[in-house]
């Protein structure tokens, strides 16, 4: 019991730490913030319920006023800004990513986690994200979708990375990947 509780807290800390480490560079030379990758990993490693809890814990601390979001952002203002929909979508994204990793046991960890991260972290996440931008920026849904499309390639790469990292964690610490434990 203690272990699951601490895992949830430390994965919340991992999301925060991923916002603090210098941006990593992908093969294409595009620097990305790894924070949304952290959200995907919460789901694919911890599983649906615990992953969503870890992300909720992270968001609660951001809302309380800890500057944990990338760029040292935090506070209540974020939750009424155009980013709000994505923040609200984060725990749902982690839940779906975790659920898919849990259910697709017939697939290898890599493929199940990558697929889960893509469906959870892009398809599911973008729905509240786009609605949030449409409401706060007073745009129609297609217009808001247009504003979100530049982020899809980066998020696809992050999904593959989430799959690869979950796969190597499953090899290094098999009992720690709770989504498959």
């Amino acid at each position, binding site marked *: 019991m203690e272990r699951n509780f601490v895992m949830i807290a430390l994965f919340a*800390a991992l999301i925060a*730490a991923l916002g*603090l*480490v210098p941006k990593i*560079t992908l093969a294409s030379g595009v620097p990305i913030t790894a924070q949304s990758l952290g959200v995907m990993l919460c789901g694919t490693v911890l599983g649906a319920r615990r992953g969503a809890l870890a992300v909720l814990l992270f968001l609660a601390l951001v809302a309380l*006023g*800890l500057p944990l979001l990338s760029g040292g952002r935090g506070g209540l203002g974020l939750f009424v800004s155009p980013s709000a929909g994505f923040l609200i979508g984060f725990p749902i994204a982690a839940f779906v990513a975790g659920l898919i990793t849990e259910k697709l046991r017939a697939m290898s960890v890599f493929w199940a986690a990558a697929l889960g991260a893509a469906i959870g972290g892009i398809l599911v996440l973008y729905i509240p994200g786009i609605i949030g931008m449409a409401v706060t920026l007073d745009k129609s849904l297609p217009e808001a979708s247009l504003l979100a499309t530049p982020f899809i390639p980066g998020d696809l790469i992050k999904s593959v*990375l989430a799959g*690869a990292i979950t796969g190597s964690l499953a090899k290094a*610490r098999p009992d720690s990947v709770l989504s498959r434990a």
Partner: protein
Amino acid sequence: MLSLTSEIRTPYHPWPAGPKLGAVCLVTASLFIIGSPWFSGAIVLACLGLYALPGLGFLRQGLGALRMLWPFLALIALWHGVSGTLEAGLAVALQLLAAVGFANLVTLTTRLEDMAAVVTRAASPLRRFGLRPERFGLALALVVRFTPVLAQRGDQIAQSWHARTSRRPGWQVLAPLALGAIDDATYVAEALRARGGIDPVEE
């Protein structure tokens, strides 16, 4: 780690956190429901007044906290500038500034402990789903403690990467970082259990 609460004392700091959070919900909802630029503008002016009242230093802090909106304001300016609907763009910008400005004011003037107490109270209905709100304090402490630990380890892994190659660190540094977090969790869980577990028996 520092919270975003302003160290400049304002008359708003002693006000209870619950009603302040309620006011944020109310103001935000009315901004988006009413949607009139005059109403948004009035809230922006009121916010400016509230920020200016405790002094220039606090006003500067408040304006600094709005920097997260810059990319969106630039986007609005570009979008409505190109489509020639500057008036509509101004209305959207005012609405955003009012909503975020007011919410930031509450974040700047409410202590972390007071906010955490409200969250613990507000989360108590979740008991039904097996959540224990009283564990929130310990979880908060763990995150606050381990965020710098993990960030520092990320730096160390990046340094050992630099020792081996002149290329910039890539995604390969992320797996050892996550692995470290998992191992830490195992040790911390053991330590917690040795000290009586996360739900100590009431004395």
